[in-house]
């Protein structure tokens, strides 16, 4: 998603340019593929914990609401509190990594935030204090998104000029796997703990979440191992610490063009109709479609399941064809259709959710790269930071509103609300297409046209 990371300097350029002593076996030799694979594995698991725990509330929606005696509005605050710090941190995550902590310490510190946040979240359950759970999610949020930035920076630092796109794809897939495993595991884990403790209640919930927190510890261990290996590689290969290379200048905002603002609008209106829906989806599938708790978890995670393998494929497709706006239009229209199916029919929701999964993956691949076409390179960091910040702001606000709507007006109205959001997104896409056409912009060029323009520039 964050292409700007690719812009960071390659720090491991050229295998064997500075050949290490030949005595090291391949797996310990930072310049060899075998060693990089070990690093890749660590990088993938680095984000696993935070993605696993991000959707803990969705996986345990009924349990959280029952054990903590909260309504849906309050329940959704758990998501809102995750998003609030990131409204600001999106701008500073890169800065903190580059200038303050360095990538190694930055990663460790963000992992610690994730761990501590999850532990506080779980403690809130054990001592039956919902405000503590909210605070836990806030701390978790501070670490969560910045950790993703750190993860990408590591990827660039180790794989730039080699298997970088594959690595990005794998990291994203791993994140989705984390979310999926969470959705399908936590309910089961809760029932096991319940059997063990003999009853439901906030303690059971807290213990379940604490056990879920083990994944965060695992991620922290990965962060420590990566820091060690990265330092070791620096010593052996004389390489520098990785940098995000992000330069954020808030004054750039005044230079943002209309198409960029439209892209922001598409982004925020789209994502608020996906993530809060998944956060509230489980009970919807149980109540409306009569699914068992297990089946509801499974279908609620299908967006992530589809996104894991489809992201790289759609990435390739969009790269090869261009025409980004058309792809975005297709994705948003498909999402609209999917929400309409969920709202107004009793058809098997696997159809709608699969459609949502496919369109979500397609949108991610077509929308995020568009920013690079409408912003000069030196403003790219600011633009992406801004986009994520607005997205988080939207998610925080809409999560709360969604909870309120559900409590007072039910799921049909909530779905209609989401449809209105997607429709606004669709409106923005259409507007973007028209503006782009009118201004003769490059957003909707096919890959071939882009190639020709590139050539004409170099000539």
């Amino acid at each position: 998603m964050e292409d700007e990371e690719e812009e960071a300097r390659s720090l491991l350029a050229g295998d064997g340019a500075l050949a290490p002593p030949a005595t090291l076996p391949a797996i310990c030799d930072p310049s060899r593929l075998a060693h990089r694979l070990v690093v890749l594995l660590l990088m993938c698991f680095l984000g696993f914990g935070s993605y696993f725990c991000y959707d803990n509330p969705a996986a345990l929606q009924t349990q959280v609401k029952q054990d903590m005696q909260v309504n849906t509005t309050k329940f959704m605050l758990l998501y809102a509190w995750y998003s609030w710090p990131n409204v600001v941190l999106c701008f500073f995550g890169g800065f903190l990594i580059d200038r303050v902590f360095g990538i190694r310490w930055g990663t460790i510190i963000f992992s610690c935030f994730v761990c501590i946040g999850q532990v506080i979240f779980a403690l809130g359950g054990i001592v039956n204090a919902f405000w503590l759970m909210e605070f836990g999610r806030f701390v978790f949020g501070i670490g969560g998104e910045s950790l993703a930035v750190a993860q990408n920076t590591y990827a660039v630092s180790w794989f730039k000029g080699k298997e970088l796109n594959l690595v990005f794809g794998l990291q994203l897939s791993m994140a989705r796997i984390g979310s999926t495993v969470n959705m399908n595991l936590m309910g089961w884990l809760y029932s096991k703990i319940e059997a063990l403790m003999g009853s439901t209640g906030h303690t059971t919930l807290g213990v379940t979440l604490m056990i879920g927190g083990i994944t965060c510890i695992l991620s922290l261990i990965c962060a420590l191992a990566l820091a060690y290996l990265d330092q070791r590689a620096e010593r052996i290969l004389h390489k520098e610490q990785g940098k995000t290379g992000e330069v954020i200048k808030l004054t750039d905002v005044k230079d943002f063009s209309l198409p960029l603002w439209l892209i922001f609008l598409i982004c925020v209106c789209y994502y608020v109709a996906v993530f809060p829906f998944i956060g509230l989806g489980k009970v919807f599938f149980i109540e409306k479609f009569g699914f068992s708790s297990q089946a509801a978890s499974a279908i609620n995670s299908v967006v992530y399941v589809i996104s894991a393998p489809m992201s790289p494929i759609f990435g390739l497709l969009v790269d090869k064809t261009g025409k980004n706006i058309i792809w975005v239009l297709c994705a948003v229209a498909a999402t609209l259709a999917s929400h309409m199916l969920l709202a107004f029919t009793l058809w098997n929701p696997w159809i709608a959710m699969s459609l949502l999964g496919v369109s979500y993956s397609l949108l991610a691949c077509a929308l995020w790269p568009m920013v690079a076409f409408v912003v000069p390179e030196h403003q790219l960091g600011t633009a992406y930071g801004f986009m994520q910040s607005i997205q988080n702001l939207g998610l925080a606000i809409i999560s709360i509103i969604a909870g309120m709507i559900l409590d007072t007006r039910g799921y049909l109205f909530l779905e209609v609300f989401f449809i209105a959001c997607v429709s606004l997104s669709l409106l923005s896409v259409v507007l973007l297409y028209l503006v782009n056409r009118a201004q003769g912009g490059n957003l909707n060029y096919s890959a071939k046209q882009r190639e020709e323009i590139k050539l004409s520039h170099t000539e």
Partner: protein
Amino acid sequence: MKGGGERCWWGRRGPSPELLLNLLLCLAPLGLLGEETRQVSLEVVPHSLGPPVNLLHVRAAGTNSTLHYVWSSLGPPAVLLVATNTPHSTLMVNWSTLLSPEPQGGLLVLPKDSVQFASALVFTRLFEFDSTNITTSEPLGKPYSPYSLAEFSWNNISDSLDPATLSATFRGHPTKDPSRTFANGSLTFRVQAFSRSGRPAQPPRLLHTADTSQLQVALAGASRGNRSLFRLEVVMLGQSPSCPSMQEQHSIDDEYAPAVFQLDQLLWDPHSSGFMQWRPVAFSQQQGNRESAMPCHASALEPTLPYLVPQSPIVRAFFGTQNNFCAFNLTFGAPTGPGYWDQQYLSWSMLLGVGTPPVDALSPLILGIMAVALVAPGLMLLGGGMFLLLGRKQHLEYQSIN
């Protein structure tokens, strides 16, 4: 809940020709019913000869039909529902017969040949289970001995009569209560009639018409355990030896009862003459918000024999020896989730009426939002496309001049 099986009024399939035919058939003999508004009067039938007896007569007169609801706590709480095809039909009460051991003929609706439909519901027993003590044979927990509602004493209904809301409340507790479980508790039946269609503010917000009345059953402050589950036994008088059918309707619309996508109804006969309708949800708090919603499970209807259930004098007074009784149970809550134990409270509501049961439609707000949401992007594309086309044409013309 098998009975009539599933029926959907949206999405899966449209109304079948058979259904339309049924509708026509059922509307034909009862075409007189289905009034927009009715003149509703509530009256406690006076018993001049002795102590007051709770006999509430709700008369809902339309332009060419009348509905009579007779609620009474004589014996177990019960209601008679009689529909006539004249606006002038009246209820006659012969107190001495009604209170005698053989009450047949104690209640009459005159003129007799105007009666189009008549039936009755009797609320016979309240069961209580200890849900901390669940076994495979007792999925709700160990049962306590049931309360027979015939052995309850009730308040004087005259005191709770509210002509403004067209409602009255029966409040009762067991006559014999040695363990004093009902010391501060009560079981209430709040009955309400309607002069026109509408929807109450209180969940589950069932849509009512002038052809329906509502009953809210509430239990408060009484239980024998820490985690008690309750079950209410309802006996109804069928029109034929076979029992009425129970229908579960799945809907896409939960706007008025968040997260409840089902509507249960019981039709006395397929050609819908009288019906009971409720949402399978009960509430453990008075406000009836979503956190306090608990499932309400209805069992299938089974034929039952008169001597197995407590008899209601008013039912026997009107129907005589007719005894096609069917019984079913409503179970409120489940061993997990919100329950009576939260606030020692539970309430559940149903509609009772004649004609075709009310059907929810999508609210104007939803339709409005959908219309704007779907039309706006299309219009934008159309308008913008035209603008671009025209712009290009002018551009081309400009170039050709050059």
